[in-house]
């Protein structure tokens, strides 16, 4: 993908699309059968947008170091990466910290409303999955290293933000529509799920990370792998 093409993809993230209507009820009515079963509530685009601004504002207020010294930020799908001079306070924690209780694949896909894409690795598939509305994750074992795979739908997700200090190298990579590779010093990951759970802002230190956008899904891999190893794994996921 050329620089211009990457610029167009980036531009697409900032287009002013009209709020997407919820079509389920209207289509259901025209299928000739009504059901009493409760379905997912319609997406309230305006409410969500307001909620997102509230979250972003809340985080900025909560992290004065970051607020005072934001150098630049990048959007990629559902994820924002901000470069700061000083990282917000965070601790190193297990990869799946804060993502909720472990679930079966079926239960996680149901909660996330998203089917997870897995690489074709040797051995049995993962047994534990983690989910929030619009996000599904699992721990893979690749080259004897634990790797967290998270997949997010940009039109549903919450806030997923990474703060990178001067010691973290952030570079574009060619995968999917657009990709970013973060390595070097650990960076801080901060996220919050859904407008109804604004108070649950989580932070932790994160290691090497590859983020890429394919279709309307944002993929994220985290673990102690090299860029080449991570890209190899990523290409197996969105092959």
């Amino acid at each position, binding site marked *: 993908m050329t620089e211009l093409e990457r*610029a167009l993809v980036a531009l697409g993230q*900032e*287009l002013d699309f*009209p709020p997407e*209507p919820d*079509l389920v009820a209207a289509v259901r009515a025209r299928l000739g059968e009504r059901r009493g*079963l409760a379905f997912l509530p319609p997406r309230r685009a305006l409410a969500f947008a307001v909620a997102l601004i509230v979250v972003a504002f809340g985080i900025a207020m909560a992290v004065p170091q970051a607020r005072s010294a934001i150098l630049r930020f990048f959007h990629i799908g559902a994820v924002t990466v901000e470069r700061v001079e000083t990282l917000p306070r965070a601790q190193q924690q297990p990869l799946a910290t804060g993502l909720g209780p472990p679930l079966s694949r079926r239960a996680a896909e149901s909660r996330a409303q998203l*089917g997870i894409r897995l690489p074709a690795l040797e051995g049995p598939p993962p047994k534990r999955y983690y989910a929030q509305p619009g996000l599904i994750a699992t721990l893979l074992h690749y080259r004897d290293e634990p790797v967290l795979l998270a997949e997010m739908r940009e039109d549903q997700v919450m806030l997923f933000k990474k703060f990178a200090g001067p010691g973290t190298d952030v570079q574009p990579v060619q995968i999917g529509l657009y990709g970013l590779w973060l390595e070097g010093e650990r960076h801080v990951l901060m996220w919050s799920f859904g407008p109804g759970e604004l108070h649950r802002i989580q932070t932790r230190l994160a290691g090497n990370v590859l983020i890429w956008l394919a*279709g309307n899904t944002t993929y994220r891999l985290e673990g102690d792998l090299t860029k080449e190893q991570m890209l190899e794994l990523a290409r197996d996921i969105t092959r």
Partner: protein
Amino acid sequence: MVGRPLDESDLIQRAKRGETHAYEELVHAYQGIAFRTAYLIARNAADAEEAAQDGFVNAWRALGRFREGAPFRPWLLRIVANEARNRRRSGGRRAQLALRAATEESSGGAAPSPEATLLSAEQREELIAAVNELPEEQRAVISLRYFVGLSEHEVAEALGVPQGTVKSRTARALERLRESYD
């Protein structure tokens, strides 16, 4: 390319058997991309909503002809895009593509927000203006390919043209846009 909706092939099979609940899950999974695709073709929100809705209903009626094992998304988007094209031909006001109001300030930063150093605010405005000035057939290809994230095959399906045509239109459009971007 896209995270699969839940057990898509299973949902399609159940929908083919007349299970509306299964089809509603497919509608839920694809309504966002269907609406955006329709909007980029019709360039009118009301027309796009009608086109997406009619597209889903028509796809439901045509499910019996859907080939088992084929990808559902391009098939669906072709039907939706056809509805959108029909509405576009009917006239009415057509919106230009525009950027959202800047969100940098709401994140608490005073810094500019170029996308990975790719674009300054001025370049973004120039680029979106250049996209709007493209001939309609090139603008549609660029919009669907890069703004919605469809594959070349899906763009070809949506616009009802051969994949080679998508390639050539894309190349011509990128050549024009490069003049604005460089």
